[in-house]
């Protein structure tokens, strides 16, 4: 990406993630390994001294490197090509462990997942649990069509209490209040840092572009509640602050500020976003990395976790998400928006055609709805994407006049 300004923290990010994967694969360490999804209440696992490992993050990483062959391995085992490509990559990596990156992520001692992102995650984790013969705990966070009623909070809190006992049975030791408080404190701190970093993109030019956020979100997902994540995001925050102080933008000549909706197109992280950057269009805010923006409140830790993990972005209605995007467009002074209509993610994508039309009506800003897939390049039509992006950018240029 030529003149694209690379963050110095990127090197530390690589080291951090290498260490994380090495630890996940190191069977000499005494901590049990739990495979968890990105929306699982990881603070409880950290407090139980369990190492959380994330198949979703792993699948995204494989997607960047080229994950179709792993999708195909899952398809040969009977999984439909229409299913989530994260799930297919993860299941394919289990089947092709010797050839897959990081030995297919090793093997879990137990699995924990939460349906606050989608129902697919539960079916995927059920398949993993069957494959490894490992125990699975599923946390059910009621979908928020119209807010969060008290009985739903109590329901999730009760399941979290059950999860604590389930973890204690497996580790043979209890979770103390002070250890849980510390995990929550670290989680709070890292989430606030991540929020601060994203908020710095409100300035013009934006110090970060969406691909930066997609890359640097990894620790907020896999190391939330761990001290090394706090140290990392302090460093990143300082670097981004410096960019702001010196008026350094993420792209050389920011002309258009855009909102991105949905998961990244991991397989084309450079090429796709370069189409925009080359024409002065910067994605200054997105709905994906904002999913890790909720801060656990002080007070009863279990109720706080119940509220945070039930209230995540994808567990809320299309109407809520539309209003949220409208607010982001205003806060970040966006000129337009791009929605990745992601074949792999119905939860994120089904409401997008309606949201695109209504968001344009509400803001007057043009929007592009682009069908692709986060990892499966067979659903990415290069020429068609290029033509549609160019037409969209011409519309933006015409409006700027």
């Amino acid at each position, binding site marked *: 990406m030529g003149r694209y300004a690379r963050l110095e923290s990127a090197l530390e990010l690589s080291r951090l993630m290498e260490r994380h994967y090495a630890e996940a694969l190191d069977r000499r360490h005494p901590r049990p390994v739990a495979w968890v999804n990105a929306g699982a209440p990881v603070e409880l696992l950290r407090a139980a001294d369990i190492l959380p490992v994330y198949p979703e993050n792993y699948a995204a990483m494989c997607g960047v490197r080229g994950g179709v062959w792993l999708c195909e391995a899952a398809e040969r085992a009977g999984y439909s090509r229409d*299913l989530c490509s994260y799930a297919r990559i993860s299941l394919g990596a289990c089947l092709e462990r010797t050839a897959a990156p990081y030995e297919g992520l090793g093997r879990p001692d137990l699995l924990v997942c939460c349906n606050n992102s989608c129902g*697919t995650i539960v079916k995927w984790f059920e398949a993993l649990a069957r494959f490894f013969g490992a125990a699975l705990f599923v946390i059910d966070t009621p979908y928020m069509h119209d807010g969060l009623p008290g009985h739903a909070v109590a329901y999730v809190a009760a399941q979290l209490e059950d999860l604590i006992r389930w973890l204690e049975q497996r580790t043979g030791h209890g979770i103390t209040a002070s250890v849980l408080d510390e995990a929550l404190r670290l989680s709070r701190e890292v989430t606030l840092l991540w929020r601060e970093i994203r908020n710095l993109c409100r300035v013009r030019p934006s110090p970060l572009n969406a691909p930066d956020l997609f890359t640097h979100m990894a620790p907020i997902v896999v190391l939330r509640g761990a001290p090394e994540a706090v140290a990392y995001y302090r460093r990143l925050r300082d670097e981004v602050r410096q960019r702001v102080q010196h008026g350094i933008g993420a792209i050389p000549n920011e002309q258009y500020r855009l909102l991105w909706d949905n998961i990244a197109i991991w397989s084309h992280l450079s090429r796709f976003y370069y189409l925009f950057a080359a024409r002065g269009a910067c994605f200054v805010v997105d709905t994906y990395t904002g999913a890790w923006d909720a801060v656990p409140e002080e007070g009863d830790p279990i109720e706080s976790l119940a509220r945070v993990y039930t209230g995540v972005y994808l567990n809320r*209605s299309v109407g809520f998400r539309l209003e949220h995007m409208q607010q982001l467009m205003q806060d970040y002074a966006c000129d337009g928006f791009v929605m990745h209509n992601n074949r792999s993610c119905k939860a994120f994508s089904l409401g997008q055609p309606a949201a695109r039309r209504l968001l344009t009506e509400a803001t007057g800003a043009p929007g592009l709805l682009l069908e692709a897939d986060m990892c499966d390049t067979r659903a990415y039509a290069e020429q068609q994407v290029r033509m549609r992006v160019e037409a969209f950018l011409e519309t933006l240029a015409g409006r700027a006049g």
Partner: protein
Amino acid sequence: MSASPDPLATLRGVCEEELPAWIRDAPKGSAVGVACSYAPLELLHAAGLVPVRLRCPGQPSAAADAWLPPFTCSVARGILGMALDGTLDRLAAVLLPHTCDTIQELAGIWRLVVPAAEVFTLVEPLAVESPRAQAYLRQELQSLAERLQERLGRCVTDESLRESLLLYDHVRRARARLDRLRDRLSARDAWAALAAAWLLPPHRYVELADRLADALAKASPFPDDRPRLLLAGSVIDEPLIPALVDELGGRVVGDDLCNGMRDAEPLAGESVDPWDALAARLLQRAPCPVRHAPTRALGGRLAELVARTGAQGVVHVLVKFCDPHAFEAVPAAQALDAAGCPQLLLEVEAGSGAAQVRTRLQAFLELLAGGR
């Protein structure tokens, strides 16, 4: 309503209508469309409403294409299309229970694109075997009753709910009786006789189903010389597949379908607390693959049903883009393989035509006939 001279013709007829004709004649504001077999029909009925299942019995209306991505199942496209083109205008409301990601998202989309519609939701538990599920579901059902009262002025009392539970138990008994009499029905007629339970007012269905069962009980079974099939999968909204089974010389001896027998057990029974009884029934019924129910997975259930019915093969019907069933189809196939039961996975879309389905079914039936 007067009794139909031919109950089977009436049951068949209602399955061929996009929206049952009785809704046109019923008082406006009495029918509620439901999009999933987890809808608490008893609760709606206890509120003085008549639930009717929303479905897509043919080519989905194109009206929804502008509002849904192409990778949306035909069921969701079909029912949103009916909302958009005015077909559902006579309904008082729709209820979309918490089921797959698609139906979950559909509720929010519906509210945005058909703002005049009254869209109710019910967020039922996913982990149906969790010890926490029953208390939560009871409260969620009561919350739905409060919203029905608030928005439609319909009141549910303990007594009305108790009566509706007994009535729907009667519906399930009538369905179970017809299921046992499949050997006197064509596959197409058995499908219609069971699917109609979701489309007719409960008293009317019970009356027709009982009369049909009485008549069948006196009839002789069909000769038992055709390959015996089990139909499994998500939902069959049009008669194409059972009709092809008949035409190609097979017979259906049982089903595990969303609009077939999957939810037929258990009955709610007499109960002191009807809310608990309803919650328990919804949690204890055979789970849809969308639910997390580790001790009651589809594969084990199918293997058991194969053993009980003597089925020689399973036709697993997968509606394209139905993710829970697509995931569950894999372990289900493994369980059937382990039981030595041949199977055919048929991926279908509403209104997509018969040619490929016919070819594959024919080959499967020939395989089974050859193995006899």
